[in-house]
Each structure stands twice: as structure tokens, then as C-alpha cells.
């Protein structure tokens, strides 16, 4: 369970996130939808306590990332914007390294790593060094590494970027399975079809502000459009007059 209340963050005087509030519940997939530069990555980075919000407040399972970053990180598994692997380590070693940093025991790690390799269908590449991996293989390993400690909350920043159809489907199946086991899944995307296909709730962000929050049909109703893409464009354009492009994605 994640709640975000009026968080704000700026870089060198430019507001990346002006005021964002939403909540992501356990047993649901929440989508953070917005165009490039809307503030999605900055918002997520504040959730996993890489950035400190200037104002506003965040809770992850009732805890504040700023006052208890270590505890919060234990409850979070994240696939961030950058998802580099260590190319001289095998896929399995990459996953195990993060498990060790999460303080997992060797026995526990053996079991969990085998389980994840099976779940994500990467058995064939598990003991190869990651240097020559395809984009899809890399994302799968990065996801396994992110959830190795079985976090209650799973955060993903544009997880399907650069993935082909079959990898995207495998990822969706994995996220649905996580939701059905009662976890809180939050992911960001700029592709509406994807959010529609997967999410129980959608939070639309544009120019650092939340412009809509609800189920897919509620968003259509609110905008009075029948087509999803029209609805998205009309939502995102609402505030475009208030400020220019605020990019915070790195």
C-alpha cells in the first residue's frame, strides 16, 4: 500500500513534480500514465527514497521513506528507469547479489532464485554472463533482481520499453500474478493501451500534476470521449498552458 500526498520536487528551479497525490492499494495494479517529461520517473524516485520531496508526504505500508528509508526499501521492489546489469556476472549471480544486499541467507536465496528463474522463463540464460543479453532478457533479469526479496510493493518505471510482444505478455502475466497474490503493483507508462490492458486504476500525470485518477471507464466518462486515446490527449492537454515542458527524466 502506497499513499502519496501533494509531493513536490524541483531541479535547478524547474518544477519536475508540482503536486502529485494518489494511492496504490494492495491487490491492485495502479498505472501512472503520462507523456514524456510529465514527472513519472521523479515521482517514482521519491517513492524509493532516491530523491527527497520538497514538500508533501509519502507512506509505504504506513512508513515514511525519508525517516525510515531502509525499512521502506525492504518493502519495495523496483525496476527503475535504468536497469543495467553487471555484464561479467551471470544472470543468476546478478539476482543473487541483490538478494545478498537484502540480507537474504544463502539457502533462502537458492530457493528464491530458482523460483524466479522458473517464473520468468529464463532458465536457459540463467548461467550465462549477461554481456550479450537481448533487451527482453535483460529486463527479465532486472525484474527478478527487483523482486528477489519478495517485496509487498512492486514499482516499475516504463517496464515494457523496448520489449517485443512475447516479452511484454510474459511481463503482464507476471504482474497479474503478483497482484493476485495480494501485492501492490505500481507502474508507469506513456502508452495508454498498455495501461488500459493491465491496470485496475489509472493515475494520469501531466506537467507535474495529477489530472485524472480512476478506472478506465471513469476516465472516459469524465472526458466525455469514447476513444481512449482521445481521452488521454484531452486530459494531458488540460494544463499545458500553465507551464512548458518540465523534463526530469534522466
Amino acid at each position: 500500500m502506497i499513499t502519496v500526498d501533494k509531493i513536490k520536487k524541483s531541479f535547478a528551479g524547474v518544477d519536475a513534480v508540482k503536486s502529485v497525490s494518489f494511492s496504490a492499494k494492495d491487490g491492485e495494479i495502479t498505472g501512472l500514465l503520462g507523456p514524456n517529461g510529465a514527472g513519472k520517473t521523479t515521482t517514482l524516485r521519491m517513492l524509493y527514497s532516491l530523491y527527497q520531496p520538497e514538500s508533501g508526504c509519502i507512506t509505504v505500508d504506513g512508513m515514511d521513506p525519508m525517516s525510515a528509508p531502509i525499512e521502506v526499501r525492504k518493502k519495495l521492489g523496483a525496476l527503475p528507469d535504468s536497469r543495467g546489469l553487471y555484464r561479467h556476472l551471470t544472470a543468476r549471480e546478478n539476482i543473487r547479489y541483490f538478494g545478498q544486499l537484502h540480507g537474504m541467507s544463502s539457502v533462502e536465496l537458492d530457493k528464491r532464485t530458482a523460483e524466479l528463474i522458473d517464473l520468468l522463463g529464463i532458465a536457459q540464460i540463467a548461467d550465462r554472463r549477461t554481456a550479450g543479453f537481448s533487451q527482453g532478457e535483460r529486463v527479465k533479469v532486472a525484474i527478478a533482481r527487483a523482486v528477489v526479496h519478495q517485496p509487498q510493493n512492486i514499482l516499475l518505471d516504463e517496464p515494457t520499453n523496448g520489449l517485443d510482444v512475447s516479452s511484454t505478455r510474459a511481463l503482464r502475466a507476471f504482474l497479474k500474478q503478483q497482484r493476485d497474490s495480494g501485492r501492490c503493483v505500481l507502474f508507469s507508462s506513456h502508452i495508454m493501451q498498455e495501461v488500459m490492458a493491465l491496470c485496475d486504476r489509472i493515475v494520469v500525470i501531466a506537467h507535474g500534476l495529477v489530472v485524472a485518477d480512476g478506472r478506465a471507464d471513469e476516465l472516459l466518462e469524465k472526458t466525455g470521449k469514447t476513444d481512449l486515446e482521445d481521452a488521454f490527449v484531452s486530459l494531458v492537454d488540460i494544463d499545458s498552458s500553465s507551464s512548458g515542458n518540465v523534463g526530469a527524466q534522466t
Partner: protein
Amino acid sequence: MTSALWAVFRKELIENLRDVRTLASALLIGPLMGPLLFAGLFTLIVNTEKQRAEQEMELPVAGAEHAANLVSYLKQQGVKILPPPEDIEQSIANNEYNIILIIPEGFASQWQQVEPATVELVFDKSRKDASRDIVLTQSLLAAYSAQIGQLRLLARGIKPSVLNALAVDHQDLSTPESRGALLMVILPLFVVMSLFIGSMYLAIDSTAGERERQSLEPLLMVPVPRWQIAMGKLVATLSFSLFSLLLTLIGFALAMRMVPLEELGMKLSLGSTNVVILFLIAAPLALVASALQTVIAAFARSFREAQTYLSVLMLIPVLTAASIQFLQDKSSLLLSLLPVLGQSLQMELIIRGEAAPLGATMLTALVSMVLGSLLCLLVAWLYNREDFL
């Protein structure tokens, strides 16, 4: 050691030991460059010297018939007398001969009248390889001249020693070790270099490298205090630096055994005790090298950028180590406290076969360790900054 710090350290070690590029630069080129250069250079010098010493001196003489006594004296002294070439000056210019003796026609009449009899030596002093023959010929002629002069004085009833107003005694106090040490200023230089080269790759890899490979963000998200991640990486970097140092010292010890330096009148040896002492003297610098390079690399966005910074940075300690040659007052305590400079001076003492003063050496080590620790704190602080990402 906490388990996270240990996990980071072990992962860095495994990853870099699998990387051919790291291994080649940190543990092969860096440590072996100095010893190989030393061995190659000195083998060359020793061999050329030996060849030249064994070679019989050849001396073409023009007009040998005018001075049969002089020529037979030269033969007695082991000089091989050759007939003169057609064009004397040209043959010197062409490197055919090192020096040529010309005895003019008037020699015999000058000799009989007891006037200084003129002989002429043709040579090119700028030719380094000819210098031995030039000096030898000149001294042989001077000795012959003195010998004949003494006989002439005796024939006139005068003590030959009246010609010598002074008797100069030479006492060369240089020992085989100290003569060798003159050449060994290169050891501190390569030792300092090995510390920096050994840790350079890991210092970059753990900061700018993680950033460029996009693995820093996931790493900073783990529930571990960042100083532990930073220190795990630093300990790995330090290990490579120390390992590189050890290899350099062992390399030098082996190289010195291979080169027959005694033949140059030098005695140099690096026994296992001295290898350990040199290691202990230089080790605190490994901490400075590792932490300093990590700090600098932390400001770079890419591997290449960091490499550029660090290559320039490395000039400072290397030039400092080389500068001990030009120091007038090597005993100044203040200078010896400076990192790199102090260690270089102390290493030089050890190589010269002297003992480094214990108190000053400990103080130098302490200063370097304090500096290194401060730099480690700076690394931890940088890791904690929001814009480190």
C-alpha cells in the same frame, strides 16, 4: 565487516577478476612495466660495456716507420697497430675507426734534438662510442712521454720526481650499493605508479562505470546504508592497488637478480626482507590512491571522461616521486611527511642499503593514512548525495 559490505567487496572482486581489461591493466601492464624496462635497459648496458671491454683496441698509425720505438711500446701495451686508411679524416667521419695516430716525417729529427716531438691524433670527440679508445690512446701516449722524459732526466743526473710538485691521492667512497642506487631512483617512481594504475580501473568502475552502465540506480535502492556500499567498493579497489604494488616489488626483485649488475661495478639486490619493508612503506599510499581516484571518478559521467581525469591526475604523484632526484635537502622532516614524497625518499634509502628512520617513516605513514581516511569519508559523503545518481 557487515554482510552487505562483504557482499559488495566480493562481487567487485569476482567481477573485476573476470574482466580481461582490468586484469591486463591493473595486474600485468602496471606492475610489470617498471621491472621489464629496468631489466631490458640494464641488460643492454651491461652487454655493450662487456663487449667493449673485451674488444682489442685497434689503432691505425700513419708514418709508423718514423717512430719504431713508440709503435713497439704501443704493441706491448696490447694495442693492435693497423696500416692507415687512404683518407684519414673521412674514415673517422665514416665510423670506420675511432682514432688514428699520425707520426709526421719530422718526428725523428725533433726526437734527436730533444725537442717535444709532434704526433697527431685524429678523432671525433662527439662520438660517445669512441670515447674509450680516445682516452686510452691519450693516456698511453702521456705515459710513454713521461717514461722517456724520466729516462732523459736520469741520464742528466736529475731526480725525475722534481717534476711532480703534487702527489694526488684518490679516495672514492662510493660503495657498490650507492653507485647502483643512483640508477634506482626509478623504483619509487614505478612503485607509486603501480599503486595508481592498480586501483584506477576499479575506482572508475565503481562510480562513473556504474553510472554509465545504468546499474547505479538499482544498487542505491537496496536497504543498505550507502556508506557500506561505498566502503565495500573501496576495499576492493584498495586490494587491487596493494596487489599491484606487491607484484611490482616482486617483479623488481626478480629483474635485479636477472641483470648482472656487478659487471657495471654496482651491487643491487632486493631481498625478501626489503620487499616487505618497501611494501609496508608504500602501502598507506594505496589508500590515498584508491580513495582519491574514486573521488575524482565520482564526478565523471562516463568511463572515458573519468579515465581522462585520472590519467592527468597520475602525473602529479609520478612527477613527485621522480622529483626526489633534484632535492637538495633530503633529510627535511617537513618534506618527508608529504604523501608520495616522504615514501619515495624512504624507499630510496632502503634501496641504497641504508635504514629509513623509524619515527619519521611511521609519521609519514600516519599522515598518508589520515589523508586516505578523510578521502574515504568524502567518498561516503558523495555516495549519500542525491545528485550522485
